[in-house]
């Protein structure tokens, strides 16, 4: 037993487990590289294309919270995304609020929230993106 690690000259058997994990590693490398190449190749760089959906409207201590999901279906990431929510009363703006998302990555969704003092259920709530920085 003491002999078994003596010198590199002795033919050492690579344990089966090592082969299995190495094969897993090979799959990970090819998978990661493949995904990245696909990401690059499939990309006809369409600009950020943002759509908003309202998840919930909840009362808070000082008013109301509107939780929203923004989905970027473009192939470009929007950084520093400015979002504005408006409570419309006919043509007039009853109240506006804004939020900034650090990133809305390409083909991904992000969540955020907007605070209002008036009850958004009483108005026509509109959420839109104002602008972003290209990362």
């Amino acid at each position, binding site marked *: 037993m003491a002999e078994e*690690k003596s010198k590199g000259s002795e033919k050492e058997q690579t344990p089966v487990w090592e082969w299995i994990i*190495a094969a897993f590693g090979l799959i990970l490398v090819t998978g990661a590289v493949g995904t990245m190449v696909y990401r*690059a190749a499939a990309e006809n760089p369409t600009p950020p294309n943002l759509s908003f959906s309202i998840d919930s409207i909840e009362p808070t201590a000082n008013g109301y919270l509107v939780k929203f999901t923004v989905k970027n279906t473009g192939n470009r990431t929007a950084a520093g995304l400015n979002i504005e929510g408006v409570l419309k009363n006919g043509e007039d703006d009853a109240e506006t609020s804004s939020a900034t998302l650090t990133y809305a990555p390409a083909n991904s969704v992000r969540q955020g929230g907007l605070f209002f003092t008036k009850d958004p259920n009483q108005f026509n709530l509109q959420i839109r993106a104002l602008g972003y920085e290209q990362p």
Partner: protein
Amino acid sequence: MPSAKRKSDTLIFFKHLARAYGGAILFSFPILMTMEVWWLGAYLDGFRLALFTLLTIPLLIGLSYYDGFEDTSSVLEDVVATFVAYAVGFTSSALLLYLFGVITTEMSASEVIGKISLQAITASLGAMFAQSLLMVDKATEEHAEERKRSAHYGGQLFLMVVGAVFLSMSVAPTEEMVLISFQMTYGHTVALALISLLLMHGFIYAVESSGHENAISAGAPMWSIFLRYTVVGYAMALLISFYILWTFGSISDMAITEQIKAVVVLGVPAAVGASASRIIL
């Protein structure tokens, strides 16, 4: 008898594997907890990230040859150890990013894999480094030292490349790299380059003159060491920092003079990593 031997080989492998996980987490912590790295993983150009991952493989194979977490005696074993290290780096990064809430199930596959594979580059290098830092096995250690000592000039330069990549990767993704270069004047840049050279030469001279086991040209005159190691090493450090900044897209669309400034800034950790690698590794 053979089955008992096989069993103990398996046991040793799992010990090495645990050590590799330790190394991967230890060395990748600074960037696992850096938000710029998460963002880069999400939006980085796919080709550049794929190229970076592919280039990591020969780096790991070479590192395994000189200094891996296992005592290897053939190229095939180095290749096997390389993919084990990548598996360790990838899975440890995936686990920690998931626990940090950086990756979630509702993100696209491309975003999740991008984030993990960027971290996996440093983490797999860390898994390979595990041997030097967390070593226990005396025999393996002696063997690795022997290899390093007998490493030719090319081998020494290779270890410098690994050191440069490794140390510069821990800061390269941050916005400070470009910010610092904006704050600097051209005078600052020239001075910083000279200081980097001096710093490098200090580290290298310490190895060469102290009779450290990695010294392969003990007794060589100072100017010879300066030209063969310091100058060549600094050139490699600058090339590596340019490559990494290009990969991250930090210096794209910048004037050439501004690009050089940023390269010199990232060249500082690259130079220190390159010259110190022969002490650390």
